[in-house]
């Protein structure tokens, strides 16, 4: 059985196997990172809060499991950038062991043996681009400026509640006014650019700056990770921004490792939550959210237990929440229709690999700084798009885009000394295979072999170093974490599902159309990634409904 190293989780108590008289102030369904953020804020505000988790371990997709003696994997999410520093500060997560260590650089290993490196130092990186094109090297400055303008625009919105543009409530009007002013602050030219940016494909956006295919392919990766869209699909430029708008200690766009794996994020949140008196019940799957007279009253667990609560907050994605655990008759028909149409398509897989040593890659000096960063093989936009073509046909990409990292070069805690853990994120893989085969069969390992072969094609000793690997198809991701179709963002990050449209127009303020029922997962604003912002935003709205003062979103750290 999976075990979450070092995390104590309360087993369901004896009392809870009976029908409890206790009425919690709030019950959160799902101990993923957003659920825990909401829970910690609510508990900190003095509420009596319980978090229910179906798995024996907490964390959802921010989880560190030990599946092979001596190794800890970041089984799902594997790097951190978006997690809001305000939340880390508010909840004092460092006291509960959270440490985010930035990594620098990366590399695309081209099929012809050439390598395109990225570097921390701006001028060194420019020189590297100039090896391919001097024009591209200079275009990189213009590109960075453009992306930074978008980041600066989007960042202050992350911890605000989106206005309802059709509402006449003073708060909505004020927030809409803020949004308008914020938009106007860009100036005429950049207002146009922003609108264009939200609808552009990442390929079109990069074409405006760069001429070298590998340079474009390297940057384009951030535009397709986790999304069921190809690099030429409109909307992927925003996905890139979504991956760039985070920061580590003020360094915008930087990514890092959570020491001990991504489970450390959940572990620290659970620690903060418990320090405020919160209770986590694992092995407690919710069968149904109970209602009475159109209001939510608590939850019924699959083991038959009933827990009562004044507020219920679902950290499950919007589709799973409203099609699986809320009875349809309490929901407006129009709402339910839109829930069913919510785009939440699985497109990603994952390999976690235990290695007996650090692999050698052809034409890369050992201990080159790029090896400590993100590694890729897709060297052209055409290869990337063909990978998407396979997904559309219901197959995994024969030549996938991978985002590969060896965190143990930096984090000493995840593998024995001298050994390594490799995380390989794979784009694309469909949740169901068009040839009718189940993922639970030979298909899963065939998928893994496709990825392992791609790595081995550039590394002479890789195959010999592999001690163990875990394969996660979209189906496996859904089965364990509950993410519908294994979509890592709890719903596509396209304009029709962002800001006041997320998850569904008219329901972007974290409240469900059932009284006392709320949503706090990444299906809500501002979306996916291990960001914690949806959880914090939901907590603020819930506390607002209870007339309890909470954090001020205007404290947003500036960049």
């Amino acid at each position, binding site marked *: 059985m999976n075990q979450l190293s070092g995390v104590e989780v309360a087993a369901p108590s004896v009392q809870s196997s009976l029908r409890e008289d206790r009425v919690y102030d709030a019950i959160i369904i799902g101990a993923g990172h957003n659920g825990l953020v909401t829970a910690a804020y609510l508990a900190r505000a003095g509420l009596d809060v319980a978090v229910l988790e179906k798995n024996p371990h907490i964390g959802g997709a921010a989880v560190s499991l030990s599946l092979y003696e001596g190794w800890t994997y970041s089984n799902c999410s594997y790097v951190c950038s978006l997690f809001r520093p305000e939340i880390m500060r508010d909840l004092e997560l460092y006291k509960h062991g959270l440490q985010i*260590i930035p990594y620098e650089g990366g590399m695309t290993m081209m099929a012809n043996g050439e390598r395109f490196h990225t570097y921390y130092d701006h001028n060194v990186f420019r020189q590297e681009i100039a090896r391919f094109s001097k024009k591209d090297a200079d275009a990189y400055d213009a590109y960075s400026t453009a992306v930074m303008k978008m980041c600066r625009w989007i960042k202050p919105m992350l911890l605000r509640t989106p206005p309802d543009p059709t509402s006449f409530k003073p708060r909505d009007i004020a927030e809409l006014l803020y949004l308008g002013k914020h938009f106007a602050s860009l100036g005429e030219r950049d207002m146009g650019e922003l609108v264009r940016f939200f609808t552009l494909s990442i390929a079109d956006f990069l074409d405006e700056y760069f001429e070298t295919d590998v340079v474009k392919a390297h940057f384009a990766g951030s535009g397709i990770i986790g999304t069921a869209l190809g690099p030429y699909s409109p909307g992927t430029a925003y996905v890139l921004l979504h991956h760039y708008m985070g920061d580590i200690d003020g360094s915008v766009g930087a990514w890092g490792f959570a020491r001990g794996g991504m489970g450390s994020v959940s572990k620290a949140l659970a620690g903060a939550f418990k320090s405020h008196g919160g209770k986590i019940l694992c092995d407690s799957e919710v069968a149904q959210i109970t209602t009475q007279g159109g209001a939510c009253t608590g939850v019924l667990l699959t083991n038959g237990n009933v827990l009562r609560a004044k507020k219920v907050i679902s950290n499950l994605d919007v589709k799973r929440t409203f099609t699986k655990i809320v009875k349809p008759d309490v929901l407006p028909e129009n709402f339910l229709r839109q829930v069913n149409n919510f785009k939440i398509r699985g497109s990603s897989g994952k390999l976690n690999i235990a290695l007996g040593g650090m692999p050698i890659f052809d034409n890369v000096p050992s201990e080159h700084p790029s090896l400590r960063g993100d590694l890729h093989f897709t060297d052209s936009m055409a290869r990337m798009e063909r990978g998407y073509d396979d997904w559309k046909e219901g197959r995994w990409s024969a030549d996938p885009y991978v985002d590969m990292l060896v965190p143990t070069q930096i984090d000493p805690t995840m593998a024995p000394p001298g050994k390594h853990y490799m995380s390989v994120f794979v784009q694309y893989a469909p949740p169901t295979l068009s040839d009718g085969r189940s993922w639970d069969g030979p298909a899963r390992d065939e998928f893994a072999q496709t990825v392992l072969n791609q790595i081995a094609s550039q590394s002479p000793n890789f195959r010999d170093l592999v001690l163990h690997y875990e394969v996660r198809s979209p189906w496996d991701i859904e089965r364990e974490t509950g993410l519908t179709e294994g979509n890592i963002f709890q719903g596509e990050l396209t304009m029709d599902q962002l800001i006041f449209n997320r998850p569904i127009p008219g329901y972007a303020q974290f409240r469900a159309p059932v009284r006392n029922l709320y949503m706090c997962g990444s299906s809500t604003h501002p979306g996916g990634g291990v960001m914690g912002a949806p959880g914090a935003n939901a907590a603020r709205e819930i506390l607002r409904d209870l007339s309890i003062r909470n954090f001020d979103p205007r404290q947003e*750290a500036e960049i």
Partner: protein
Amino acid sequence: MNYSMKIKPDTVRVGLKPTPFIDRLRPLNKFESLAYWQGYWSPADFGNPEREYFAIRNTTSVFDLSPMTKYRIKGPQAEAFLQRLMTRNIAKLKPGRVAYTVWCNDEGKVIDDGTLFRLGPQEFRLCCQEHQLFWLLTSAAGFDVSIHDETDEVCGLSLQGPTSYSVLRALGLAAVETLKPFELRDFSFGPGSIMVSRTGFTGDLGYELWCAPGQALPLWDALQSAGRDFGGVEPIGSTALDMARIEAGFIGAHLDFMPADQAVRAGRAASPFELNLEWLVDFNKGHFTGRAALLAEQKAGSKRCLVAVDIEGNKPANHALIYHRKKTEVGHISSGIWSPTAKRNIGLAMLQMPYGKSITSDLWAEIYVMRELKWEKRMAKCTIVKAPFFEPARRRATPPGAY
């Protein structure tokens, strides 16, 4: 016409003075980023101070301590002399132990702080930032003690970080796991030996390794191999070290206090009380330099106090003035950074009493930020907190954990 000039062979070279580690460090210092430390070649960073900072808090960092000023103090009256010089009770310092201490002038103002290593009953080493020989020799009048500047005879490496114990074990230092905080011990290394003390300037698990210059490069190379499997032994510069020491709440000369013997302006020097170091002052041990003045200050009250502050926002507040009610100027931030581990904007602040003691609220730091050639002013609220800002349990654990 040709002149032949006579040049003495030992003429001082103009430029930076090398340390015994320079042959290893210089090739790694690819961006040639240096800090000025007493005229020695000393790196400010190796290209990425954040990465170096995280070596301190995540794996093992190595910092060349060789420029540290070091004095060997020995003789039958070495203890009596130091007892007279230091504010701490040196009689309590046993051989094999290290103590952090300050020493004052007659006015009770701090000349410098440093670490005092008791190598034997009659033998000490004093490590500090500033040059002290003049003051030490002046103070030693009448004592049977010899004082010798051994800065260039002993070189040092500071090995700091959660895997530093694992690295030393891999280096083959026998029973290093029993070394307690502030303990020192000799270990055999190569043909000779090195001294290791469990000390540092980072507030983390860490050690300082001291050896003769001839052992410097073999020690460097052995540490690099020993650390390979533990995430490496990462060379760091003073920028990263400074971040860690602020998180640890440690003060620095010329940063948080003005060395009393160098202060030209009246009122600039600070007493141990003002630096929040009253725990270093022992009035019961007998006479010591500055005692009368410090007793008087204790009675009359100090004029200033050094406090730790948590500052709103994310803009480092270094050197910012501090106001009460955004109106009255009451002090300044002497050291301020964004703490990458505590995820807080932190600082050490020197405040005019009673601010910082009886008046602790409504304090604001005036932070100026230059953004694309425009100065922007931020008034950021300061909350007085307890230092250190980050104190991992591994700092004191004996035996330490693997990471």
